[in-house]
């Protein structure tokens, strides 16, 4: 077990980002739990854009997925968001708490609101993903549009 470090919080505008994980430009975060096991969720920016989340589709646990493939969809009253896999691997589990309470994603997107755990084929893939600064650039660009 690795010791749990307090993750450093960064705020850009109204949006929280955490330094302990990586990001994808389609608004997913990914964090290593241990070894090859990672958690994937959507960012604070993404949940603030979607707003009140009322449904998370249950993904197929055990399924092999490729980077860029759709893991599941997240729905609010006004929009449907896609959760795209940031890595190659296999879906190990789905956060079943979301079946009863999808608003966990709104209330705690980086913690209780995680969506799936994935076994990553090659953990070094994470190095190619965005860090906090890189992801802030993505938000900046979208906010300009």
């Amino acid at each position, binding site marked *: 077990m690795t010791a749990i470090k307090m993750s450093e919080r960064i705020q850009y505008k109204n949006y929280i980002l955490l330094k302990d994980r990586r990001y994808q430009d389609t608004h997913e975060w990914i964090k290593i739990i241990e070894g090859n096991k990672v958690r994937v969720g959507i960012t604070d920016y993404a949940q603030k854009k979607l*707003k009140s989340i*009322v449904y998370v*589709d249950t993904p197929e646990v055990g399924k092999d997925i490729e980077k860029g493939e759709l893991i599941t969809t997240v729905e609010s*009253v006004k929009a449907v968001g896609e959760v795209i896999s940031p890595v190659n691997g296999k879906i190990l589990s789905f956060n079943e708490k979301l079946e009863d309470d999808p608003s966990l994603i709104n209330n705690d997107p980086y913690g209780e609101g995680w969506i799936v755990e994935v076994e990553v084929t090659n953990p070094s893939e994470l190095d190619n993903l965005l860090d906090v600064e890189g992801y802030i650039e993505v938000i900046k660009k979208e906010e300009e549009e």
Partner: protein
Amino acid sequence: MRKTPFLDFHKEINASIGEFSGWTMPIDYGDMLQEALITRKSVTFFDISHLSRIVVSGKDALNFLQRLVARDIKKLSVGKISGPTAFLNQNAGFKDDVMVYRLTDLVFLIVGNAINHDKIVDWLNYNSSNYNVDIKDITFDTAMLALQGPQSTEKIKKKIGEKIKNLSPLNFLTNIKTKYGEIKLISYSGWTGEAGYEIICDIDVGEKILRDLYQEKILPAGLGARDILRIEMGYNLYGNEINENINPIEAKYWIFSWKKEEDYIGKKALFNILKNGVEKVKYGLLVKKGSPLPRKGMKIYIEDKEIGFITSGTFSPLLKTPIALGYINSKHSILGLKVKIFKGNKEIDAKLVEPPFIKRL
């Protein structure tokens, strides 16, 4: 793009601004589900300045409107709003659904949908040539606000005074002196299924009211919450449940007076439809808990047979389940029927119900 005169105020209080019916309006203030719930449980205020407000006056005002709307308004008393009525086309399709207010014997106010504003101004002018009437569009010179929820009477009394207390549903008062300035009209009405009031006033007066309500810790609700609340009540939204090709019988929307003697546009077609029956009828769909949301345009099936389509879908924060409105082919018009809504390759289980989904008023 048209915009609410209070856009700066909404931005100040962190509204999410969006487009509705060609207007830039507040859609929510962070959480539309919560805003809908608070409206049901206590009270919220809405900016509904996008609604069209047209004053029809003159010697022939009554006869003119009798010719254009499907409800009998000659017995409508001064100080009262007709129930929902509509301008129909020659085929009895909806041009717009509206409320008619009788301000004086010969002065009426029509409140309608933002999306139909230009069409209805044209329609009124087009039909007015043989009538001595004056048609005045006051939409852009006035504001319209709503205070809705079980605590709205208590709040409005505190703000505007005791004279409000005897106002009953679909009644209104005009030219009320208040600390904000003169309120042109205040009515007991709304579109939420709750007790509530709607105010029409000058823009500067409206701004003072909004700021005062907000300072009093009454929470704002946006058009997102308004949509959830109206779907919970089964109310029709123009462009979703009703349009030029849908008639009041299919929509089960009783906007006409059965015994109205005078002829009006669409009357003949309407009574023909009554005689011949309809191909489809509107229903509510109560969706199984934990399902994805049904959305406008999705098809409704029994086994592999398509029997209808969705016109509006949302999530009811009160029932904690998705709900929808839609049309079902008449042959399958059976209350309680279990159906499936197709969403891509997914099936959503639902049951045909008669709205409202929640019991109110």
